[in-house]
């Protein structure tokens, strides 16, 4: 458990640094859009989650709650990520709500499948979670993407980057789950936790970094898109 604790702690530390960096960026930059609070919020939740997982795995506190903390983390952060992507694409509230609902269902069903006592519940949960994930992917690729066609190329570029990164990384999760002990047991639990940590870190830090870089590198270009998105989503 020592390796897992160290991994969780490292991820938590990285999340914390990223959170501070993004907040500092948000404060230094003249960005008044309230959606700029999403990336640091996601990062903070994830960091706190990993800190909790590190404490739990290390025997310091929250004994045996690694799985619960992870799914709680996902249940909060993944809908926010979806929301952020949809907001960048200036999607409608209905679409955003549907995507966030499907995402939450995906996480909940995945938790059910992971903690299922019987194979029926486990594969049923996996199927429901997978369908929900496909629904989210569908919404992001169709409805939300259709809405972004009216936005500028820069906004579209940022949107696509976030969308593709998210979908690509999230596609790995069910595969890893199938290889994990919860699934067919190809990889061990510590390796599973490591891969998930890498994926989480990559997904969240990568996501935040892309948003940050998009703003800092072509930040002024983004201004009109920001304004348009704000006006559309307000």
């Amino acid at each position: 458990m020592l390796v897992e604790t160290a991994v969780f702690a490292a991820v938590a530390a990285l999340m914390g640094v990223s959170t501070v960096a993004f907040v500092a960026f948000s404060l230094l930059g003249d960005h008044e859009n309230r959606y700029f609070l999403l990336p640091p919020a996601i990062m903070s939740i994830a960091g706190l989650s990993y800190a909790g997982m590190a404490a739990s795995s290390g025997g310091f506190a929250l004994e045996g709650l690694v799985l619960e903390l992870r799914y709680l983390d996902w249940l909060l952060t993944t809908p926010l990520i979806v929301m952020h992507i949809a907001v960048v694409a200036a999607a409608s509230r209905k679409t955003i709500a549907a995507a966030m609902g499907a995402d939450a269902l995906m996480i909940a069903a995945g938790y059910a499948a992971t903690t299922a006592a019987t194979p029926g519940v486990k594969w049923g949960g996996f199927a429901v979670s997978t369908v929900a994930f496909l629904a989210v992917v569908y919404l992001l690729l169709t409805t939300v993407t259709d809405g972004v066609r009216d936005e500028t190329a820069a906004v579209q570029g940022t949107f696509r980057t976030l969308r593709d990164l998210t979908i690509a990384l999230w596609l790995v999760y069910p595969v890893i789950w199938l290889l994990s002990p919860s699934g067919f047991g190809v990889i061990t639990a510590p390796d599973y936790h490591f891969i998930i940590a890498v994926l989480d870190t990559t997904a969240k830090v990568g996501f935040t970094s892309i948003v940050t870089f998009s703003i800092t590198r072509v930040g002024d270009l983004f201004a009109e898109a920001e304004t348009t998105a704000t006006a559309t989503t307000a």
Partner: protein
Amino acid sequence: MTDTQTPGSVLTRSLNTKSFLGIAGFALLLGVTVWTRWLSIRGSVSGEAETAVLSALVTTLFVAVVGASLLVITLVRDTAGALGFLNEKAAQIEAGEFDVNLDAPRYDEVGRLFAAVRSMRDAIAMRIDELETAQREAEVAQREAERQAESLAASAERMSETFDAAAAGDLSVRADEDVDAEALATIAASFNDMIGDVETTVEGVRSFAAEVDEASTEIDDTARQLAAQGDDVVEVIDGIADNADDQYDTVRDASGELSNLSASIEEIASSSDEVATKSADAAEIGNAGNDAATEAVTEMEAIRERTEASIEKVEQLESEMDRIGEIVTLIDDIAEQTNILALNANIEAARAGGAGGDASEGFEVVANEVKSLAEETAEKTDEIESRIETLQSTASDTVSEMRETGERVERGVETIDDSAELLLEMVDTVEDANDGVQSISKATDEQATATEEAVAMMDEVAELSEASTAEATDAAELVEEQNSDLDAVSDRIDDLSRRTRRLREQLESFDGGGGAVAGLDATGSAASAADDD
């Protein structure tokens, strides 16, 4: 899924495809590597070690693939995003939005690309600005050209109307010289100068026609007055000619009278000569008587008886001769007076030649006086003649008596001596008489000469009168010719006045305008100045 209409999308898709293919290839290669490593390890391990090894290999595989994917996606997204943004801006620039923001706070290849696009955008914007400026200038120039063309057409139209008005006779019109086209302005200025000159000339001609009309009327009146005065002059000259004719006739009559006077005087002269001759004869006879007395001395006694009778006859003869002497003396006085009258006649004649009518009357009086004197002289001369005839007869009687008394003379020797002395005295007296008669004859000759000169002068006067008559006639003819000329002039003046009025009527068709009429005098003087030219 993506916008395929823009090159940027194609680029992005291409990059995504390449990224996907690269990641897939990397994952495949890594998967094959892990699979072969697992096959080689699988025989030497077992149990939990086998599971741990497989798990580690799979974990490594996934992490590697995820990391590679993250790296590739990040790089591709970064480049693709910037290129897509740049593509969008290029599209905006292409659409004409040159104020797009191309600032990129990066100094890599993408940053240089942005700078290059920015420079290109600025250059294009500048060129387009230049083009638009040039186009605006061209449009402005075109509008200006159109405006000028319209202005030119309008100006030409106005000018044409002005020309038409001027052609219709309105000389007060002026073309607008304030036009854009220099050529039209020049034409307008030339036209205005020309129409101004024409107006001035027409006004000048008009006023000149009026003056000519007025002058023609005056000249016509003057000519008629002159013609009337000419008629008066003709009448006066005719009167002068008639007077000259009368004068000529009078002078000619006077000349005839003078000629008659001259003839009478010549007759007197010849009579005087005869008297002289007779006197000489008488003297000779006296001498012969003396001789006879001398002879009679011898016959004294015969003559003596007759001598007494002869004495009586001779005494009678003596008295007759005395009478003759008185007459001759009278004639001499008359001759002197005639001479004086002739002299006066000469003077009057000379005055008549210089003064005309009144002188002729004076001369007529003188001539009448001369005429009466001449008649009186003629009467006296006749009386002398008769007396001389009487004397002759008496002398003849005396001769016969003397012859009868010759014998008586002889007897009257004593008486003869006395008779001889008386005869001698008689001879002296006769000679004296002869001398007187000679002087009479001489004076009469001089008188005749003077009278002839007077006649010649009278002839000259007559010629002068005739000449003056002819001249008066010529003058009358000249005045009549002048009158006819004046009539012709009057006709011509009437014709001129008629034509001038027609000219003025024609000129009335030209409307010079109020200003031109008001400046008639000025234009009239200008026109006269122009006439001078």
